[in-house]
């Protein structure tokens, strides 16, 4: 099966003046279609840098990154924006919805930038909201919603463009445990439908919902293990 994400010895070096920080050191990692990968690591371990690169928000200093077989090396900012729009769905810790904007319009946003015609856009956005169980809240403003609802809107927004991969950066970081497990249940449901997910988290309990766990340390991959079947982890949700 084709890899959705494939990095070969990617490095990222930040240099400011005399200082030169190597945030990522020759990391090679592949994520298959349909995988659910969790990434852990202390702050400064390079996991955020890695996420930024595979999210096409940033380019590696060296090495190659293929997303669905497309090498991003030397791509312009606009080309990267287009890849983000078509192939990547972001879910952030702070939800990052537009305030004073309805849930529906928030979900429509990627399609607007993808130049999808209005009628089709609306239908897809409603479908995405249905998938996260918020079809009845489509007209609510994001700032009138609870954290869990906001994160579900954010997931709908990530989904709506039918991306190749969903990148979630500590999606439960701002949520209580009960809401966190609801959100994780949604991710698992989506993953069962074949959506590839890469998720950064601090918490082992959250990572346990994934199929595969990668730990970063000092800009390198420390461990990369397959986890037990997530459906079983799902059953143990009560322990969370």
């Amino acid at each position: 099966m084709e890899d959705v994400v494939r990095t070969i010895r990617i490095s990222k070096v930040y240099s400011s003046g005399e200082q030169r920080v190597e945030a990522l050191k020759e990391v090679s990692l592949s994520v298959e279609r349909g995988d659910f990968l969790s990434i852990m690591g202390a702050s400064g371990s390079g996991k955020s840098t890695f996420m930024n690169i595979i999210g096409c928000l940033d380019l590696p200093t060296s090495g190659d990154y293929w997303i669905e077989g497309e090498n991003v090396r030397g791509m312009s900012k606009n080309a990267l924006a287009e890849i983000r729009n078509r192939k990547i769905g972001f879910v952030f810790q702070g939800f990052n919805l537009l305030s004073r904007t309805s849930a529906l319009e928030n979900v429509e946003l990627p399609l607007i930038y993808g130049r999808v015609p209005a009628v089709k856009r609306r239908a897809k956005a409603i479908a995405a909201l249905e998938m996260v169980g918020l079809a009845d809240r489509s007209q609510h403003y994001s700032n009138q919603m609870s954290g869990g609802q906001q994160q579900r809107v954010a997931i709908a927004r990530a989904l709506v463009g039918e991306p190749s991969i969903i990148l979630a950066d500590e999606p439960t970081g701002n949520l209580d445990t009960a809401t966190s497990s609801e959100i994780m249940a949604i991710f698992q449901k989506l993953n069962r439908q074949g959506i590839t997910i890469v998720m950064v988290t601090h918490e082992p309990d959250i990572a346990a919902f994934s199929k595969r766990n990668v730990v970063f340390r000092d800009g390198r991959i420390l461990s990369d293990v397959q986890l037990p079947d997530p459906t079983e982890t799902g059953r143990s949700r009560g322990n969370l």
Partner: protein
Amino acid sequence: MELLMSLRIAIRALRSNKMRSFLTMLGIIIGIAAVIAMVAIGSGASKIVSEQIASIGSNILLILPGSTTSGGLRLPTGAAPTLTYDDARAIQKECSAVAYAAPVVRGAAQIIYGNMNWSTVVMGITPEYLLVRNWPVIHGRHITPSDVEGSVKNCLIGQTVATNLFGSEDPIGKIVRIKKVPFTVVGLLDQKGQSPQGTDQDDIVYIPLRTAQRKLFGTQFPNTVGSIMVQAKSEQDLDRAEEQVNVLLSQRHRIGPSRDQDFTVRNLSEILGVAEQSSKAMSFLLGAVASISLIVGGIGIMNIMLVSVTERTREIGIRMAIGAKERDIMLQFLVEAVLLTLIGGILGMALGVAGAKLVSAFFNWPTLISAKAILMAVGFSGAVGIFFGFYPARKAALLNPIEALRYE
């Protein structure tokens, strides 16, 4: 569609900060209002001047008798009775650049109709005079060449005279007495308004030239005229006409090169042209001063847009993360700035027009609101929006999405 979307986003952004949007707009509103009102006031002034020029008639030369020295006493210009009816006829016949030469005698007289009387100016003219002045008879008929040659006692009256003597009565065919001489009113002149000097041009009675010379203002020089009005064939012929008149009259009056001329040729349109130019310069100056406030308003827009970009850094980051390209972000902020200035421009336009009307009403100052000025002002406000919105929009578009997302 893109633009429509940007427009919706911009409207939402402006509405979410109503007070700030309004205050920002205020700079543009005042700027545009000032430009429109000032230009309206300035053009009003130059319109008056051009109307006055038109009321004199175009391409006019005025020939006045020169000054004379009598027993060591120098008399003022116009005092010497040196111009004659024959001079006028000669100019008309011999000067190729001249269209018409209209000799005039002038005097003050009391005019009586029934039990009404009115003191006014009586001028003896030939039929050419009203052609030169571009002054139509609206009721009745003109003075004809045979009126002039036959010294017929007919007269034309101006609107002011008609109102004061006849009220609402039809003056045509009525007999009036000028200095006790009976005249038949044959025509009523169209309204002419004020002269450049502010006198009422409608307060006038015209009679045939010969009649005036022989029957009303008899002098010791029976053939002289007070002045001759000359109309050149075109604006280009004006200088040539002046030259020809000078040469011809010098010959006729036998004035050698070393002697003072006993007549003066004045170019009236030239004098008024200067007045017109200065009023145009004033209106330009007023507009220029007012546009400074527009620029200040534009800087206000830029300032607020920069604040807005900083404030919405995170929003920009979100939009970029989900696929907004540089030009999408750029367009969004540009549309917002242009919308701000255009709304300001339209409000300012309304305010400016109202202000100009107010000035008209209260200070009795004519204002001229031209469509051109309005279009320019609104177009200019849009341009201000683009110009001053460009830098903030570009700044937004060039943000790094990672840093923008991290911005608190």
